[in-house]
């Protein structure tokens, strides 16, 4: 979770390989309950990592990421249920729609900064939510779209787990290359010091817009997978409380690390399941955990958010990429 990208290049890949082998073998040894749960974790990890492209790397606090997740889910539901298309098509169109909406919304949102950026993303996401919620003729309104068909071959819990895992891993590798490309390093530069990066000739608004669009695309994939996972799509997927989840996962796992949000997704779901067995009050516990995290470790995970201390705390070690 810590360490610069260089040490990850040197020692990280073997670990990543081990984790992947573990993820591949583990369904053979556990019950169906854990396989279903792991499928959810895998999809949420994709969602959280896509969010962290803009949150952790570009320093943009969007409160509307659920919009692209939900849109992906509805694309999948509409294509496979209403238009009886193959699932693969849904999974290919979902990122395109996610990216298209993210580009348009992002184009407007780039005009604002900080708090007003958060509010504008929230407003756009709520607007989409209302439209989905009210458009009974097309989206099924508040009922959502039930009974989304899944191909025969993926209809066991294990096979869908492997499918979701494969798709997520592919997306994570793509995102890994994106954040370690010159483009990814430019995003970090913009996050650290927008003015200085402008002097270097980086068009910060354009770079951020591209990052926002890419994040929307991967959120769309996550939405498509999630729709097939639960076999329905409902407006709640776009609601602002859903937007809070990837923020929480990024914070829980660590927003300044590539795998942080995935770790956050594991912690989030594990915590939820452990608590739900014991009490009905999962939100209460989540709230207390979150509040404790925010209040007691301001110099820890969350404290990194504080712009002025960030270069001192964590970026002394990081060297620029090899030219």
């Amino acid at each position: 979770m810590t360490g610069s990208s260089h040490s990850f290049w040197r020692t990280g890949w073997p670990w990543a390989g081990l984790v992947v082998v573990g993820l591949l073998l583990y369904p053979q040894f556990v019950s169906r309950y854990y396989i279903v749960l792991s499928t959810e974790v895998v999809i949420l990890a994709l969602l959280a990592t896509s969010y962290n492209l803009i949150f952790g790397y570009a320093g943009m606090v969007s409160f509307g990421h659920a919009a692209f997740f939900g849109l992906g889910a509805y694309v999948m539901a509409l294509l496979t249920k209403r238009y009886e298309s193959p699932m693969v098509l849904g999974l290919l169109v979902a990122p395109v729609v996610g990216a298209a909406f993210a580009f348009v919304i992002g184009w407007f949102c780039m005009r604002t900064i900080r708090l007003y950026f958060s509010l504008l993303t929230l407003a756009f996401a709520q607007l989409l939510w209302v439209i989905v919620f009210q458009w009974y003729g097309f989206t099924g309104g508040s009922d959502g779209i039930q009974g989304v068909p899944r191909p025969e071959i993926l209809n066991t819990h294990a096979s869908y787990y492997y499918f979701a895992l494969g798709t997520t891993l592919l997306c994570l590798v793509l995102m890994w290359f994106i954040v370690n490309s010159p483009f990814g390093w430019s995003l970090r530069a913009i996050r650290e010091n927008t003015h200085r990066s402008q002097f270097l000739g980086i068009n910060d608004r354009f770079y951020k817009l591209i990052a926002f669009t890419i994040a929307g695309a991967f959120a769309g994939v996550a939405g498509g997978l999630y729709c097939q996972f639960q076999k329905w799509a409902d407006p709640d997927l776009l609601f602002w409380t859903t937007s809070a989840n990837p923020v929480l996962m990024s914070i829980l796992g660590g927003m300044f690390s590539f795998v942080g949000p995935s770790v956050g997704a594991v912690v989030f779901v594990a915590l939820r399941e452990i608590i739900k067995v014991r009490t009905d009050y999962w939100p209460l516990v989540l709230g207390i955990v979150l509040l404790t995290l925010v209040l007691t470790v301001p110099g820890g995970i969350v404290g990194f958010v504080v712009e002025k201390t960030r270069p001192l705390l964590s970026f002394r070690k990081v060297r620029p990429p090899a030219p």
Partner: protein
Amino acid sequence: MSAVTWDLSTIILLIMSGLTRASILFIVAAGLTLVFGVLRVINMAHGSLYMVGAFIAASVIQQVGGAGGFWLALVAAPLGVALIGAVIEFGVLRRIYQAEHVVQLLATYALILIFDDLVKMTWGAEYKSVSVPAAFAGSISIGDRPFPIYNLFVILWALLLAAGLWLLIYRTGLGRLIRAAVEDPEMLEALGVNIPLIFSAVFIIGAFLAGLGGVLVAPLGSIGLGMDVTILIEAFVVAVIGGLGSFPGALLGAGIIGMMFSFGITVAPRMAMAFVFLAMVIVLIIRPWGLFGEPER
């Protein structure tokens, strides 16, 4: 689309019901905008305080009963919520004034989750309803349509409150300090003013307003979990359109959104809410700091 006959009494009726909605929105959004103006914190838990106010009111009215119950609730609920506000300010907000927006948003978001479950534990998950106090039961007629007297009472309260807030901000010593704290808290502190105390006072006033909104709305509809999130988003829209931190803005924003609801639901029931968010989007794009606000420092 339903056929609407646009005679004078219909229009007046729509304006009056729009004003009722606007009144509640103003009372809640005024608290949100006051807290933001001075503390520079978006209090996501503001809607939760409103919900707690409504539930306290329901309990008081149920226990005491009669006309006295409502009046007691009108005093007890806002005060109770103000007390909760004091606890939140001491326990949470005081520690995060210097933090980034995202930290403040997450901390107050955590409070939403906590309050949601605490309310569920205390009052259960069922919806509650409160009858209109006997003194304001019945209705007046506008043209040939009835309009509830209680709604007039709510509008009157909002107007009194707007006047009261104006007096507080512009005609009292505390108000002078609050205005100074908005402009330059560091300078004020250098002059020997106890800034943390001002911040506490402002947050407690904000909580009081949320609680008051909760009591007033109780007889208008059902009280239940989820009302916190609904009002929070609507109050957000009002405060953002008017300009975060601005009272006249909150008043105007509440008027605009109230009318959009009452006319929108009559003209195009499905689209009313979409228009509201569209209005917020447009204002944020053209003038992110709202109609009466100032650009972010």
